[in-house]
């Protein structure tokens, strides 16, 4: 397959590229400001390209962004949508450069385009609510993509140069996107347990994927591996392939999907962590990563190269998570002796707030320790948690944390029995 030409450089594109390069070196605050401004534009067009070089940083910053109908439409494809310049034709991903042609296909009038840029009402921060809002839009768009042929004008050199895509490349990409939209609800509601419902849902999406050609099949496998635990779904996928006698490009698709999943995991492990102590979002991201790596690590009958890579990733994650854990623990819950964790204030509200923060951090840390144990790295965490428990069980004289609050922290660090042992003797 021939890679498409790079998009043609118009003066506007050159200007955007310049600004974009500046943004690459901007502070977090500046990036968030520019993101807010781009989000407020009625029609984003090239302004959206501004954010291209900072998408990885945006993912770490997690700004709250308004949900437009277009963003809702693309949600099912989010895990496999990549910047155009990092996409290559053999990958099980879709370049973001398909968005403009997609919009012109499904929204032929300016009014339709305005509709796509309109904000979606309702709760979109929640997965189930978002599925409910998106389901009709995904089904409708998939139907439109089935009904509409690609315009003849898209075969022109000018159109292809402008969009960086040839029709030969674009057509299977749009078919893969259509498949994702058709299967979006099933994929998003995939049961997470190893039971009959998981097998039934998985069989449905695998059947749809296998009927869509090698790219659709591979993208579907990539989505499934991104959604579910590898150790649960891999055997089901392998069984499906055996039963359906899928080989050749389909077998290669499974290996490629696994490799790309590990690529994504590695990118996330290598991402620079924020300086701030562990918060709820970061804790759940690191726990999810540990689950993913652990899932691959528990697979047997996988190619030796993949097994070696999984072992490497496991060790790397173990080290980064442990460093994050120790830094966060010592930042507030286990500061140097002589530093009180409770501020010297008579304000009960401030004291409640401090206790609340300490408990929340202890919960995140305990969660990370549990995930580490499942990765085979429990001992170092336990030692640190025991150190923290000992500190709260017999605090320095200056520490003014009440007994029950200390018992609750010890419970999180070392379990309820250790906390129960701290109770004062009966009178």
């Amino acid at each position: 397959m021939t890679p498409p030409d790079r998009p043609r450089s118009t003066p506007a594109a050159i200007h955007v590229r310049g600004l974009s390069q500046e943004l690459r070196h901007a502070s977090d605050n500046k990036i968030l400001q520019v993101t807010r401004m781009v989000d407020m534009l009625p029609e984003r067009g090239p302004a959206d390209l501004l954010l291209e070089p900072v998408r990885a940083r945006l993912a770490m910053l997690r700004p709250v962004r308004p949900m437009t109908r277009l963003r809702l439409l693309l949600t099912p494809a989010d895990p496999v949508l990549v910047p155009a310049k990092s996409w290559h034709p053999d990958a099980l991903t879709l370049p973001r450069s398909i968005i403009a042609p997609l919009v012109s296909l499904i929204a032929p009038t300016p009014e339709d385009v305005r509709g796509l840029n309109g904000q979606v009402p309702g709760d979109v921060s929640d997965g189930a609510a978002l599925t409910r809002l998106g389901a009709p839009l995904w089904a409708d768009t998939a139907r439109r993509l089935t009904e509409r042929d690609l315009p003849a004008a898209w075969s022109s050199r000018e159109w292809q140069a402008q969009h960086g895509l040839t029709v030969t490349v674009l057509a299977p990409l749009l078919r893969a996107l259509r498949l994702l939209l058709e299967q979006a609800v099933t994929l998003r509601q995939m049961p997470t347990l190893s039971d009959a419902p998981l097998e039934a849902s998985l069989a449905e999406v695998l059947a749809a994927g296998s009927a869509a050609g090698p790219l659709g099949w591979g993208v579907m496998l990539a989505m499934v591996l991104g959604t579910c635990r590898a150790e649960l779904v891999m055997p089901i996928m392998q069984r499906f392939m055996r039963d359906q006698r899928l080989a050749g490009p389909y077998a290669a698709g499974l290996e490629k999907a696994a490799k790309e999943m590990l690529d994504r995991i590695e990118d996330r492990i290598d991402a620079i962590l924020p300086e701030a102590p562990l918060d709820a979002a970061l804790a759940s991201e690191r726990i999810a990563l540990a689950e993913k790596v652990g899932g691959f690590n528990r697979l047997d009958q996988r190619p030796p190269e993949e097994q070696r890579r999984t072992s490497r990733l496991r060790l790397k994650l173990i080290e980064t998570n442990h460093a994050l854990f120790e830094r966060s623990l010592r930042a507030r819950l286990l500061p140097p002796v002589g530093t009180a964790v409770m501020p010297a204030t008579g304000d009960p509200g401030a004291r409640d707030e401090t206790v609340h923060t300490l408990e929340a951090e202890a919960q995140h840390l305990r969660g990370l320790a549990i995930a580490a144990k499942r990765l085979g790295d429990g001992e170092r965490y336990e030692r640190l948690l025991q150190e923290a428990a000992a500190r709260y069980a017999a605090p320095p004289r200056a520490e003014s944390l009440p007994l029950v609050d200390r018992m609750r922290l010890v419970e999180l660090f070392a379990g309820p029995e250790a906390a129960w042992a701290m109770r004062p003797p009966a009178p």
Partner: protein
Amino acid sequence: MSSILTRSWAADVPAPRPDGPADPGVLVPFTAPQLSGVRARRHDAPVEYLLPNLAGGRGTYVAPWPMVAELTGPSLHDIVLAQRLAAQPLLSPAIVREQARLVALEGYAGRAAALEAARGRDSIAADAATLRGGLVSVLLHRAGLDRRGLPADPQTAPVREIARLIGWEPSQLDGVLGGIADAFLSVGTASAPRRMRRLLRLMTEVLPSMEEEQARLSHDHGTDAARPHLPSQLLRRLASDLAQAIAQANSFLSGIDRTLADPGMLIDFFRTDAIAAAAPVAAMDNLLDGWDRVCLSWQHAGTVSERHALIPIMGLYAGGRPQPDGGGKGSYAPPPFLDTGQGGAALISMRSRNEHVRARELALDHDPS
């Protein structure tokens, strides 16, 4: 395990017996998610705990606390609460609630719960005085007396005057009025509502939202009998149980209001048989047991995902009593927590959610809103 635990299948537990239905126990407001829906009962032996669906099957296990603790992993709060319940000669919703309030007051369920428990404690004396004062006012009105015409002491003078009219000792009337105020305190009056009225209002507010979600789930997943959608079925049953509980509670409340509207007759009845006079309140308390946790958990779940995840758990709180149909299709049978694959991190976050809900449950004791 079988030598220590007594397994009593749901089909056997609620079967009507000549001496009445089996005791379904009282829901204990534990905070560990593994203890969701666990109920306690006590007759002659030590406290028995009824554990739903311990191993993922249908039915109920009956176990003593040491076994419950070993199997489920209670929180520090739960250990303290179980210790307090073990010291109680009887268990009723009111007794379990009071012991749980004291444990929360000490801070074992977190600072927010401790604050709400303290507010509840502070409002009890004032609310009892209000209820008692209301009864006295009605009695004065019925006797054609006016408080303004009585001697200066506003607390004792009306009681003395009424006692004189009915030929009782003032201390005797004072004791009966105090007993009535204690017995009816958890209900309060229409003008000074207390916990059970607040809970009934909450249930009435939550029901439409639950029915709406059930209709949407049915719409999303269809009603194909061949491919039933379990959460949708469970929610239908939960909403139906809630509607039924609201109707029954309203019926109880009408009777209680009629009783409170005639304090003369109530005083006579209470003096003759205090337990029988207060029976409608106890019955209403039993009926509402667990619905506070169902409704507050539902309200606390800010997202559709959270609500869906809660559906099987909520079924255990109130509707999860041993079921007359023996746990057939559509009955509450959630997957056991220890086998959800969610891992310990999820359990920690669920415990935190339970503590939030616990604080809201305690707020029902005082919150006038």
